[in-house]
């Protein structure tokens, strides 16, 4: 699997992932000498940063964190690379001072501790050579503050009976937005959809495979939907109500990615 990423600090590294699911502070979060993780909320307390690709959503806490990261690197106890969902100043500055390659705009919840990860900040990507990617598009259709979800039929290849949005496989070098438009026409019969937003891919991970979901938001002029064979029902719901449905993985995150 290879996903695009934005360069924050230059460089390239290949190292095993250490994934922290919550925002991280280098002040108090890690031992400044050994690089051992101290913060119990990280799921990786006791592990060491040294030589790992450290992935977490974003930094938090005291600005002294930049200097802590610098100090770790100088003692060779720092991570080999940093991957964030969205970079903020403390970690970004720390990575630059420390000379640690860093990227952001990566859905770190699609990474697992132990994954082999190549971070190439200069070329702008993150690659997981042992994970097979299944690239798909998901288009959230919006009409007057309601969004369309559809129940997948028993004839589709995956997630039968679950609620989803307009979606489809990406083929070859196809432009994701073009694919999204085609799927909208095929699955709903709606024409005149207006593109509103996209976001970094959401990674729905299932062991050694990962659905790399390119999310889109379109405004549509009508709620009249003509279903094709892929779906058996459609419903226009308030975005907050998505919690009440059994959906395909990460649909809620797809919605919030394009709505924020």
């Amino acid at each position, binding site marked *: 699997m290879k996903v695009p990423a934005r360069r924050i600090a230059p460089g390239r590294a290949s190292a095993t992932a250490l994934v922290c699911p919550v925002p991280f502070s280098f002040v108090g979060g890690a031992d400044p000498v050994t690089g051992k993780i101290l913060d119990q909320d990280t799921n990786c307390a006791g592990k060491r940063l040294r030589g790992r690709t450290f992935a977490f959503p974003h930094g938090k806490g005291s600005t002294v964190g930049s*200097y802590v990261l610098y100090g770790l690197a100088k003692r060779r106890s720092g991570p080999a690379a940093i991957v964030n969902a969205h970079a903020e100043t403390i970690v970004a500055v720390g990575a630059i001072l420390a000379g640690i390659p860093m990227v952001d705009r990566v859905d770190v919840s699609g990474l697992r501790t132990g994954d082999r990860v190549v971070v190439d900040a200069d070329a702008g990507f993150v690659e997981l050579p042992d994970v097979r990617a299944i690239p798909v598009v998901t288009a959230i259709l919006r009409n007057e503050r309601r969004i369309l979800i559809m129940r997948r039929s028993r004839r589709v290849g995956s997630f039968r009976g679950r609620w989803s949005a307009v979606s489809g496989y990406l083929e070859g070098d196809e432009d994701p937005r073009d694919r999204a438009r085609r799927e909208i026409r095929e699955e709903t019969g709606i024409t005149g959809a207006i593109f509103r937003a996209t976001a970094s891919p959401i990674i729905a991970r299932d062991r050694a495979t990962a659905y790399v979901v390119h999310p889109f938001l379109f405004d549509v002029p009508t709620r009249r939907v003509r279903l094709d064979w892929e779906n058996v029902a459609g419903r226009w719901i308030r975005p907050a109500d998505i919690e009440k449905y059994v959906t395909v993985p990460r649909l809620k995150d797809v919605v919030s990615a394009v709505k924020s």
Partner: protein
Amino acid sequence: MDLTKGQERLLDRGTPAQRKAMRILVALGEMNGARNLVAVTSAHVSGASYKMIGDPGVEFLEHFARDARVAVPTTVNPMGTDLRQWRDLGIPRAFAEKQARIARAYERMGARPTYSCVPYEIGVRPGLGEHVAWSESNAVCFANSVLGARTNREGGPSALAAAIVGATPNYGLHTLAGRRPTVVVRVTTKLRGLDYSLVGLVAGERVGDGLPFFRGFRATEADLKWLGAALASSGACGMFHLAGVTPEARRATTRGLPTIAIGRADLQAAKRSYTDGTRADIIALGSPQLSSQELRAIARLVDRTPPRIPVWVFTSRPVRDANAGAVRTIERRGGVVLADTCLEVTLLEHRFGTVATPSGKGAYYLPSLCGQKVILDNIEALLERYA
């Protein structure tokens, strides 16, 4: 980002410090949607107290100072103690030595050897529309709001990077759009003394990272110093407007903005909520450091109502030097006047547990940064209570 030829040269072929500084500025600029860097006329760098930045900070600054040199006039925030009086204060020698190393590193980079959170009171007063790169939230708020200069809320390292390059990413408060108010704050009670700090604390809590447009009161520059310091502590504000007073208030449009009101009851509630101590061990004045006028006023008050507990007064070195008479008066009454350091970045937790202060910013930070309980009140009331 669009870089000038000179900036490209620094990024590719500058000294190691210049390359690192440029990388920081470019990364922060790209993260924040800046199209270019804007030249600055001064920098103000936070992160000088050993208590705050610790060994990682000392290590970085000493390494950086080997070849980093500032390109514009640069001032530095207060240190962790007054290096001319640390023995009398009971500061551990190891702390003072590390602190001195930090000062030497900054001075080697070419920063002005005075450590102050009020650069605007020691002669650095950028004019209307002038771009600067300042960290230290109270100074940022004062520069933007009262002087009409332009700076984002820089962090310590980003302000240092801007000092090395002489420029900073052009976004946020550097742009006209970023200086528009986002909320109207109507103050419905008459303000004096401590009230300005209280208004700042309450408004900061309510507006978060918004940009408040205040109405309903007048204020001197000194009043706005205390209001801004508190506002920038409880909120993430880098600027405010005050109708009829601050230089950009007249051009600001407030039509359609949400309005919140702050009245006497709100101020009383804030004073209560920031007070969790019952018996003070020390009265501390600063945060931000006192001006000449403020120092002399305190000397008169202390002389009239001498306190029976220690009084620590924080000011800048130039102000302390210029007011020898006021300093003698305070010392005669058992107080100390400290320079180059300030209330919450100074080491005082080795001796005290409860601090009484009239500083809203102090009251906000003392519990977390110094492990202190706080009594927040007017200085007159505090001196009478502990006379």
